[in-house]
């Protein structure tokens, strides 16, 4: 009657000394061991009160005056198990309950030498009637589940649970106590490519930063096992995060630049863990990795039901197909390991490429990359031309014109600034930052530049850099400069900066800019409700600022109010129809809701306006993968917009009017609807 039997599967019913071939219930052996060992320990337990080497009493009884008693946590010390009393309780209980299949095991216990009665001074514990308190039962359940998982690693979850339940029944613990959930084995694929994005100790691939944030910001409302929610809440309490962040700030000693690089890296890493947490909690089946053909088929039928109202051609096409056949095939593929690996591998490659591309393109961050073949070089007044184009909304053209301007006059702060803004609206934060840095060099006090840099760094999740610039905004502002002591610039604590901005907001509540910065700050700390409030206040003061609508939408989407977000983006687009960033963000919102085919349309639209929007390409690729449209992924990689666009022309629907009813690709449709939503959410750029 030992743990050996647990391992070798020996029957719990064996008479000591004999062996049996059948294994009835290995964890029954554990039960026996627990009961049996408690009897074994009687002698030893009795000795302990006399043992002078240790003073167990003082630890167990919090009413003593010992310093030990005053230690935190001593009140949680549980009294000695009254194993003796419990042993007999168990037996009595068992006889009463019957039919757990443990009759033999219990008989065996009867055959053992009778329990020694506890003579002598027994520690005054509170023996409850059934011997085990609720906490104890929970404990037993949790720990035995965890240990059972170690032992029965190659068995299914159901087997493990049944073993644990059998054990618990024998100890008379109800099954409805919620045990510690099992480990998230499904993270594996995702972790693979997250490694790529974080392990490299160099500037991280830009899009990886971006869309990871959105994952992390997916809140708990999807529900999930308690344990996950608990840890997540602990992690995300705004105060907790801020204080932890401050702690880290205090400990960082390296130079600012280094810090900037590290923070970028780290921020991505930070987001990754939140990604992992997010995924674990998101009960929405769409966000959980495929678990098995049956499950998927069920999810799929649910999906179909959801999509009934959409009156698209492809839905009708699809309904003719048989779910079962497809699910079988899918199951087979998974069984062969084809799908999962391919998908993960292709994503690995993708991220790899991104990293390489990144390293190739920029030696270091902040280096502006000029376009080739700029038709505006030599233009007499490229700045004015650029401004006109910008107003008209022809962002890519404006970029070229402005580049011509700054090539001509590298010290022109306005030129750089406008270039930066144009890039930001074109959803190219890298270039935006680079341009803005040059603008800042040319004019260190320009408020718009500083704000813009703050926003871009927030998008890039570089908290310390963002804080620096936002703080600089405050310093250089004619009105609020007094609030900001310059010596703080070296060690910026988020909490301080936030406080100062709140003061500024109180000083002049009519100043929309202060509210905008506040909103950006709250995005940094992920206090989305406050950010939304700040942006709404700013919008009351500046209702026609399209970028502000975009910020509001992004914040709402980041805090998982996607329906509101879409409305906000719509407002932005109404004000500025060629706002590439808003198009991309719309796409992201749809993708986050699992509506991949919708999102693809938006991405294509954004890319049609700005083929250089790297993020949008990546999101498109992701959506394509999720929509199982792997053949288009190649076209996506080679930035072949035409191939993409033509494939996505299908179905007349109420969504973007630019897509015309045309050749429905049945195959494509078929695959689109079988989207495996293994991804979480994507961040939106403010």
């Amino acid at each position, binding site marked *: 009657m030992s743990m050996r039997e647990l391992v070798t599967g020996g029957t719990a019913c064996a008479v000591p000394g004999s062996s049996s071939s059948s294994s009835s219930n290995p964890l029954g052996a554990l039960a026996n061991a627990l009961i049996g060992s408690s009897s074994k320990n009687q002698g030893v337990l009795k000795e302990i009160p006399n043992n002078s080497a240790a003073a167990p009493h003082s630890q167990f009884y919090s009413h003593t005056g010992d310093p030990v008693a005053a230690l935190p946590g001593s009140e949680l010390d549980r009294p000695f198990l009254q194993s003796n009393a419990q042993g007999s309780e168990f037996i009595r209980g068992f006889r009463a309950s019957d039919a757990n299949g443990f009759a033999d095991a219990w008989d065996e216990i009867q055959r053992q030498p009778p329990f020694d009665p506890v003579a002598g001074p027994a520690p005054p514990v509170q023996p409850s009637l059934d011997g085990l308190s609720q906490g104890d039962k929970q404990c037993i359940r949790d720990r035995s589940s965890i240990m059972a998982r*170690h032992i029965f690693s190659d068995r299914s979850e159901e087997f493990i649970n049944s073993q644990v339940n059998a054990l618990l029944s024998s100890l008379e613990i109800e099954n409805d106590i919620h045990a510690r959930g099992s480990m998230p084995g499904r993270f594996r694929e995702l972790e693979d490519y997250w*490694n790529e994005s974080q392990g490299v100790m160099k500037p991280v691939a830009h899009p990886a930063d971006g869309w990871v944030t959105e994952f992390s910001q997916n809140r708990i409302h999807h529900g999930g096992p308690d344990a996950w929610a608990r840890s997540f809440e602990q992690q995300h309490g705004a105060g907790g995060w801020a204080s932890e962040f401050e702690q880290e700030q205090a400990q960082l000693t390296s130079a600012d630049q280094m810090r900037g690089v590290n923070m970028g890296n780290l921020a991505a890493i930070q987001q990754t863990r939140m990604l992992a947490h997010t995924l674990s909690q998101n009960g929405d089946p769409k966000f959980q990795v495929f678990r098995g053909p049956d499950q998927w088929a069920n999810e799929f039928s649910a999906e179909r039901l959801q999509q009934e109202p959409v009156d698209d051609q492809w839905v009708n096409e699809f309904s003719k197909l048989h779910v079962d056949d497809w699910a079988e095939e899918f199951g087979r593929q998974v069984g062969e390991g084809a799908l999962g690996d391919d998908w993960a591998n292709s994503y690995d490659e993708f991220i790899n490429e991104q990293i390489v591309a990144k390293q190739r393109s920029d030696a270091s961050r902040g280096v502006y990359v000029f376009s080739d073949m700029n038709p505006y070089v030599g233009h007499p007044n490229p700045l004015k031309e650029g401004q006109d184009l910008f107003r008209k909304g022809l962002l890519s053209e404006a970029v070229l014109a402005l580049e011509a301007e700054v090539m001509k006059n590298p010290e022109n702060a306005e030129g750089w600034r406008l270039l930066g803004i144009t890039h930001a609206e074109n959803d190219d934060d890298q270039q935006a930052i680079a341009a803005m840095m040059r603008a800042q060099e040319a004019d260190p006090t320009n408020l718009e530049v500083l704000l813009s840099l703050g926003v871009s760094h927030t998008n890039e999740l570089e908290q310390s850099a963002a804080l620096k610039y936002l703080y600089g905004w405050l310093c250089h502002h004619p009105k609020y400069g007094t609030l900001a002591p310059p010596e703080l610039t070296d060690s910026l604590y988020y909490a301080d900066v936030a406080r100062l901005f709140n003061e500024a907001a109180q000083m002049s509540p009519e100043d929309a800019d202060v509210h905008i910065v506040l909103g950006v700050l709250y995005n940094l700390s992920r206090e989305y409700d406050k950010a939304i409030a700040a942006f709404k206040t700013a919008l009351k003061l500046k209702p026609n600022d399209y970028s502000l609508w975009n910020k509001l939408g992004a914040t709402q989407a980041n805090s998982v109010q996607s329906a509101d977000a879409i409305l906000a983006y719509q407002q932005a687009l109404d004000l500025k129809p060629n706002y590439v960033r808003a198009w991309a963000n719309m796409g992201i919102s749809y993708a986050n809701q699992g509506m991949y085919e919708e999102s693809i349309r938006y991405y294509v639209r954004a890319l049609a306006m700005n083929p250089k929007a790297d993020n949008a390409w990546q999101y498109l690729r992701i959506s394509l993968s999720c929509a199982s449209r792997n053949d288009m992924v190649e076209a996506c990689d080679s930035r072949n917009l035409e191939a993409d666009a033509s494939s996505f022309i299908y179905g007349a629907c109420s969504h973007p009017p630019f897509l015309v009813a045309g050749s429905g690709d049945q195959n494509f449709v078929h695959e689109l609807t079988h989207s495996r939503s293994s991804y979480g959410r994507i961040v939106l750029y403010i």
Partner: protein
Amino acid sequence: MPVFKTPFNGYSVRFSPFYESRLAVATAQNFGILGNGRVHVIDLSPSSPVINELIAFDTADGVYDVAWSESHDSVLVAAVADGSMKVYDTALPPQANPVRSLKEHAREVHGLDYNPTRRDSFLSASWDDSVKLWTLDRPASLRTFREHAYCVYSVAWNPKHADVFASASGDCTVRIWDVREPGSTMIIPGHEHEILSCDWNKYDECLIATASVDKSIKIWDVRNYRVPVSALNGHGYAVRKIKFSPHRRNLLVSCSYDMTVCLWDFMVEDALVGRYDHHTEFAVGVDLSVLVDGLMASTGWDELVYVWQQGMDPRTA
């Protein structure tokens, strides 16, 4: 070779960094599922093959791990299953012990490691998915590292870089951290199953070994962590604890639920160089002495602690 019988099931054994013949043993009643715990400080007497118990400390819940302080020769920390950690000083009278109780973890504390380079701080790994950094003179933790998605089973300081450590978790990943950074700096999704233990190579600070429920031990180079340097198979059940040798670069020892303690040389084709099956229950704790080359100790749920010299049979008297 001496044997020590503990009243409760053994969970962990650690050699003292100061005294060659001293060890600490963490034990828990009823296999650590429910009941009390006890920390034993035992001493190998030089003359006879007998192990004496110097002192023992009882705890309200099972003790899952124990770690010696690197700064004070009489201080040790015990990780208790009720989420607290108790600091004991063997030089003080029993009434004064535990010297401190550090209670912050929400769930069982499963692993401890004391910083061998800085000597002032230690880490705790808990089933509440977090790792905490502590020093002895502060009642509260200095840092909390919360990124794992499941129980953190084990944590190990890098022997060369005083601020770097690794944590092994049931979410099948090992994370490398730097205490100066707010988040983990690397994630190694090393196995398809829970990772129960990790340890750094004492001679090459870039090598880390992970032991998993999938019965294998993998060696990783953090500079190229996509592919393991080596995979050591041979255990029949989950591998519970591993430790790199402080004396030989390529040697590591492991103990497993298959009741054996194995010795591996990962640079060799046939890596298994030694196997000891002296335990009659799960072997859950193993340690190699830093002070004596080849001296090893193991403990298991069979309530026995063995201390023996590598190459010899642990059961011989």
